[in-house]
């Protein structure tokens, strides 16, 4: 029961992300999404998790739902952008594609031979959907900060995909993956400051100097 509710919440958040133009709202959404996805991953485990996995999930929540969103908020304040204007794909079109992606994810998971001990196949589908939404945000939006949010969404999806498919790596490596994601968003954030200083905006649509 618990996981059904969580799946619905995550689904709503992802759909909100596709339709929203307000960047502040988008950052909030990605934070809540990180939190609920981690809770979902914890709730679908059939067997009792060893304590170190609980620590890892807790750590992931702190990084993905607290530290990184705060960093992105700060980037928003410094660069003075509020809205994603003129996206590559319109909002209603993004929502429509999102719907197709949802159907596609459920269909994929339904078709795949899943390992026997998976708790809830819907959780796998929703992880896949989140991942797709992240990719869509990266290609459909033009602000560097929205693309960073898209990247974070994608990593959220992949993280939960790993957890719901019950394929834990050793703790050291899980920490390494989390650290990579953290530093990745950090470097992107620093670069956003530099881009803003150099170009007076963070719109990647105007990145046209390099092409063939």
């Amino acid at each position: 029961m618990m996981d059904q509710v969580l799946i619905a919440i995550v689904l709503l958040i992802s759909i909100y992300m596709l339709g929203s133009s307000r960047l502040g709202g988008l950052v909030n959404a990605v934070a809540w999404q990180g939190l609920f996805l981690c809770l979902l991953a914890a709730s679908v485990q059939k067997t009792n998790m060893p304590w170190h996995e609980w620590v890892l999930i807790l750590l992931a929540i702190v990084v993905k739902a607290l530290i990184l969103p705060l960093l992105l908020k700060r980037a928003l304040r410094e660069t003075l952008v509020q809205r994603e204007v003129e996206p590559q794909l319109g909002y209603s079109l993004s929502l429509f594609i999102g719907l197709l992606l949802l159907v596609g994810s459920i269909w994929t998971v339904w078709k795949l031979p899943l390992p026997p001990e998976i708790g809830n196949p819907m959780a796998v589908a929703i992880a896949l959907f989140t991942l797709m939404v992240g990719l869509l945000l990266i290609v459909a939006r033009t602000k560097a900060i929205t693309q960073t949010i898209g990247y974070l969404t994608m990593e959220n999806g992949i993280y939960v995909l790993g957890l719901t498919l019950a394929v834990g790596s050793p703790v050291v490596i899980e920490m390494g993956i989390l650290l990579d994601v953290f530093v990745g968003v950090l470097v992107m954030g620093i670069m956003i400051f530099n881009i803003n200083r150099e170009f007076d905006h963070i719109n990647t649509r105007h990145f046209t100097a390099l092409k063939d």
Partner: protein
Amino acid sequence: MIFTLFSAPFVSGLLSFVIKRDKVRRALLAFTALAHLLLVSLVSSGPQTVSGWIGADALSQLFLFITSLLFLASSIYTIGYLSSHSQSESQDKRFSREAGFTGCLILFLSMMTLAIISQHISLFWVAIEATTLLSAPLICFQSSARSLEASWKYLLICSVGIAIALIGNIAMAVTCSFGEALKTFPMTFNELARHADLLQKDWLKIAFVFMLIGYGTKMGLAPMHTWLPDAHSESPSSVSALLSGALLNCAFLGILRTNIILNKAGLGDFSAKLLIFFGAASLLMASWFIVQQKDFKRLLAYSSIEHMGILAVAAGAGVNTYFGGMLHAVNHSLTKGMLFMVAGNILNIYKTKSSSDVRGLIRRAPLTGFLWIAGFLSICGVPPFGTFVSEITILTGLGRQHQWLILSLMLASLGVIFVGMSRIVIFMVYGESPLSDEEKGGQRIDYWTILPPLSLFVMILILGLWIPAPLKGLLDQATMILRGY
């Protein structure tokens, strides 16, 4: 022993962030590069059995040698580059850009080393992603609008690509969750290959596709190559040399190791088709863009895509091309490292990357002009250079496998690329110089930036005439690993 290989540069990289004096930091860079090469030689003289997450088998040793040699050349070049570019910077800044650059450069070496020696699929992923994060600041060292654009594209495209490879890792882990016997063993490339016939085949295919696309993005295979020309042309030349000669190889290593698992599981045909498809796409894409290229650093970048395509074809075509492929990886890295450094010298003389503005190089800077044309001949596979030997080996291997279609496609692209490049390079070297006589003379030779490409040139010349016995042994062992023994 093996741990010092990546932890020593890691510590020294962290150190160089805090060292205040430029001279000391540069000395540390050169010392780290030398020490790394020494450690690599020590490790490869040791035992070769690999167990656990970290270990250097023959395949690792081969790539370690390439990376370490290239890093040594590139770090000496970097010292010359930094000392001629950084006079304007004020000394009293708390955190100089140069310290950040040197620190990231050494940490980059450390993470490339970790990627090469890691046998665990997820550890490999962590290391490869870390190389992206550490090299992105290197690309925008000049902090111009163009280099920022290039490094944003690099960071975003490669991070997404490597995230896709992470899905591949998850899928690879799922292949083991269908039987009780498989649940306990560590996810290392070796163990997976040993139990390959027990793995779930559908998930194994999914894993390979995602890993090929993910690491292929980093390796620069078309059509995921779009970051590569920008990043290679906008970064400082020593960084371009490392990106092209060392980093692309690291990503390739991941694909190679996964391919071994697929071969063992009896899915060799499936992986071969995909590898050859992406290889052929890269060859075609590269020849198309090389013919109409106007920027000589981008020209080299597209040439890297071409050679990555050749490597992918060699990895896909099967047992007869493995040896040629490994030899080609060595030759390509050394040649491309040398070419990027020479390109940096040309850029330094003419202050432009447009090949139509560079004329009469051989009269203005004879040694640079000579190295440029020799490097061009070498990268196009003209005898007596090493690339000729390796390309011929790959081509005859393809013929022995009866892969006539891809053989003719590769020959055609090599021909087109040779013509396209020669048109650009010959005018650059021998064309009439637009500058007056007093501007021509007085090019001071900077030994820091000319000796590294010169010594790489000597190496590729030697490799074309004769493969030293230790290298031959290493190549043979690496080929055995690729065949799955």
